[in-house]
């Protein structure tokens, strides 16, 4: 047996996990030292969530051993895991939106103390101490539903701290955050590390957290394909290990010099959201719109599709004005919109792929007074094939698909309407690296077929990889227009932060 380092907190050895006949994990060794941050990287289905579930005691390994502070366990249960100080922050934070910040932080602590009576002042004290430890100020008496997303994440971290966490596992910590909020989070992570708390990031968007990590651990198809000090990895090599293939980010720009203007936006403005928005989009052009949260980019995206009604200005498609603030008119004119939050705005999660694709277009499948089911099926099959949607069949619930595939279903719905302009708000939010590259390829193919595409995103590599021009928004105005080929990520990030 190898010599035990004093600061090793958890060591998992030869962990294997089988579900029925399927191997989810095979002979994985994973070690967490106190005060260390680890990147646990892998695509969907790579086994990273299985590994985490074993670590928090929700799943039990079929083989292997777990050592905590040198003590050996065959498996853990959730209570043991919590007792030794393993705390998970789920992607949805698992907070109670109807309770106050203080109660959310202290609830688990009270439970572990097996208290019967609720002590309001102790609750506030515990919460304040946890907030002080990460040096953040949040109103203790505010209901969690009223605080911003970034603060919710901090409340979740504090909840872990309040119950004496020694390891905090963060699932997709940066998905919901803007660039500036990610920086704030990283400062807090450094503080946690200094006080001896270990952090494991589980993510497919790892470049952002790489700088605070000591170790990187990559899983692919249930095995550990790469690990080592974080300084040996960069975004490209991480992607290569995770996907097992090379995904090049740079592509030659599309040639659209000769193309006609498709969409002309003139003097568009909405009080308190954005003003003086002028731009045009050519056929086959991919135009990026970026800006920090609150810069008006989301309101503008919605306004293009009529979900937000502008006060003044006009939107014209091929010279014809489109009625403002009317999604149906926008759809009829040939504008499609894929929302950022596809879970709540874009898709009917409990419905099948075929229903999601065909919704709103039943007129096209009419035969006599009846619905032509065969043509519905053909269409859905066609899109599943064309967009390479991985699903058992077209009757599969959209809920059961991975993020990348869900996004493709949302795309298929709009593409089936044969739009002339497609507005994509955050096209790859919550999508893994491999699928992301595929979605970028799809965007490119669509543009080549002559559709004008607007990509709204704060994912800078994504904008650089897909767009020709990028409009940078600030305080509701277009601050500058950048050519993607003439800039790079660092310059763009600086612009965004300025």
């Amino acid at each position, binding site marked *: 047996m190898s010599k035990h380092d004093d600061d090793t907190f958890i060591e998992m050895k030869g962990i294997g996990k089988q579900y029925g006949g399927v191997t989810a994990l095979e002979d994985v060794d994973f070690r967490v030292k106190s005060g260390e941050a680890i990147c646990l990287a892998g695509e969907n289905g790579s086994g990273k969530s299985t590994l985490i579930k074993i670590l928090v005691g929700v799943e039990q390994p079929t083989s292997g051993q777990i050592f905590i502070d040198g003590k050996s366990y065959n498996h853990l249960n959730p209570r043991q895991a919590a007792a030794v100080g393993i705390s998970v922050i789920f992607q949805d934070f698992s907070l109670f939106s109807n309770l106050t910040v203080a109660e959310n932080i202290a609830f688990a602590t009270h439970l572990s103390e097996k208290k019967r009576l609720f002590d309001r002042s102790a609750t506030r004290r515990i919460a304040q101490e946890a907030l002080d430890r990460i040096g953040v100020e949040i109103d203790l008496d505010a209901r969690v539903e009223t605080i911003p997303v970034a603060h919710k994440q901090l409340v979740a971290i504090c909840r872990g701290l309040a119950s004496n966490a020694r390891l905090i596992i963060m699932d997709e910590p940066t998905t919901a955050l803007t660039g500036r909020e990610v920086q704030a989070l990283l400062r807090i992570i450094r503080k946690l590390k200094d006080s001896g708390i270990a952090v494991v990031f589980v993510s497919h968007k790892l470049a952002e957290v790489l700088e605070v990590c000591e170790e990187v651990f990559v899983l692919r198809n249930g095995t550990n394909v790469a690990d080592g000090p974080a300084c040996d990895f960069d975004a490209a090599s991480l992607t290569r290990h995770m996907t097992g293939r090379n995904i090049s980010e740079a592509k030659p720009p599309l040639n659209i010099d000769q193309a006609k203007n498709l969409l002309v936006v003139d003097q568009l403005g909405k009080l308190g*959201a954005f003003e003086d928005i002028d731009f045009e989009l050519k056929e086959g052009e991919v135009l990026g719109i970026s800006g920090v949260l609150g810069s008006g980019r989301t309101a503008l995206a919605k306004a293009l599709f009529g979900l937000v009604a502008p006060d003044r200005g006009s939107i014209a498609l091929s010279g014809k004005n489109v009625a403002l603030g009317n999604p149906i008119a926008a759809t009829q004119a040939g504008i499609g919109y894929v929302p950022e939050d596809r879970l709540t705005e874009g898709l009917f999660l409990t419905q099948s792929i075929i229903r999601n694709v065909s919704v709103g277009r039943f007129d096209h499948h009419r035969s006599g007074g009846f619905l032509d089911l065969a043509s519905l099926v053909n269409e859905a099959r066609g899109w599943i094939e064309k967009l390479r949607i991985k699903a058992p069949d077209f009757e599969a619930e959209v809920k059961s698909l991975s993020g990348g595939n869900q996004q493709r279903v949302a795309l298929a719905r709009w593409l089936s309407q044969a739009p002339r302009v497609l507005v994509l708000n955050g096209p790859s939010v919550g999508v893994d690296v491999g699928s992301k590259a595929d979605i970028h390829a799809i965007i490119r193919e669509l543009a080549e077929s002559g559709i004008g595409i607007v990509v709204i995103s704060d994912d800078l590599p994504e904008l650089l990889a897909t767009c020709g021009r990028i409009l940078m928004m600030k305080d509701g105005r277009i601050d500058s227009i950048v050519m993607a080929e003439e800039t790079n990520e660092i310059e763009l990030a600086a612009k965004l932060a300025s």
Partner: protein
Amino acid sequence: MKIFFWKSLATKNETLVAVVIVAFCLLATFSDPLFLSVTTLTDLLRASVVIGILAVAAMMVLISGGIDVSFTAIAVFAMYSTTVLTLGVMPDMPWYCIFAISIGIGAILGAINGFFVVICRLPTLIVTLGTLSVFRGFLLTFIGSQRISALPPEMRGFSRMMITRGTTEAGSFYAIPWAVAALVIVVLLTLFILHKTMLGRSIFAIGGSLESARRIGINVRGAQFFVYCYVGALAGLAGIIHGAMGRMADPFSLVGLELSVIAAVVLGGARLIGGYGTLTGTLLGVSLIVLVENSLIVVGIPSTWQFVTIGLLILLGTGLPAWQAKRAAAKSA
């Protein structure tokens, strides 16, 4: 801070309901100067006891993220079978024993709801719709469908126990029965459970997010089971008080009242999605519903308009805050 306070006050259901109550009373006093008298108020108070206890029960279920429509069936079942049992076994039983039996029967019926919701994990609306019908049918088929007006003497005795009584200067009688104290005790007990115990906080947490409650290790099943038993017990209490004060055990009474009760709770700001609800709001909601049901005639509105009025109040009382919230959300987008 002060502006924020007034703003949050203005968007609260409680404020809205209170304003409507005051307006209603002013209107009633205007058309009948005798309306605002001790007699009317004590009458309204008496009328609020049963619906008030039921509303507190219904609120607890709503907070936990469920809904219960069977509590009226539980109340009438407990009341009628307790009366039958007492008359058959020991007619002279003291009133507090009769009450305890009724509460116990209610709790057992509540536990049946709890079994289906917690162990079988069925949706609460479906379970309680089913048990509403089953409890009522079982009562009428197996226990009896005759009205009993010869109640056990102690039950009649309870209805005569008054905290205070007297005659106003104008010469009309007024009295506050001890049954009002039952409502006060129920409110205080529920206040304590919801705000001073971890069990109560867990009920709020479960209503806020069931999945998160499981993840941080709240005993979800235990808390839910408690809620349904507690509701059953309160329904048993409300039922027996209803029987005693009406001086009759009527197996056809109470059922049908459940929607008015839930309306009172929702008017008071509890949300059907769970996690929200206050006792102040619930009591205000109850006051408004009782006012409308008993005093509409004073303002000159025919009593057949009760249902329309209650319906409009619900639309206004729950619709307005929802509409304001939506507008605020649209503004910030």
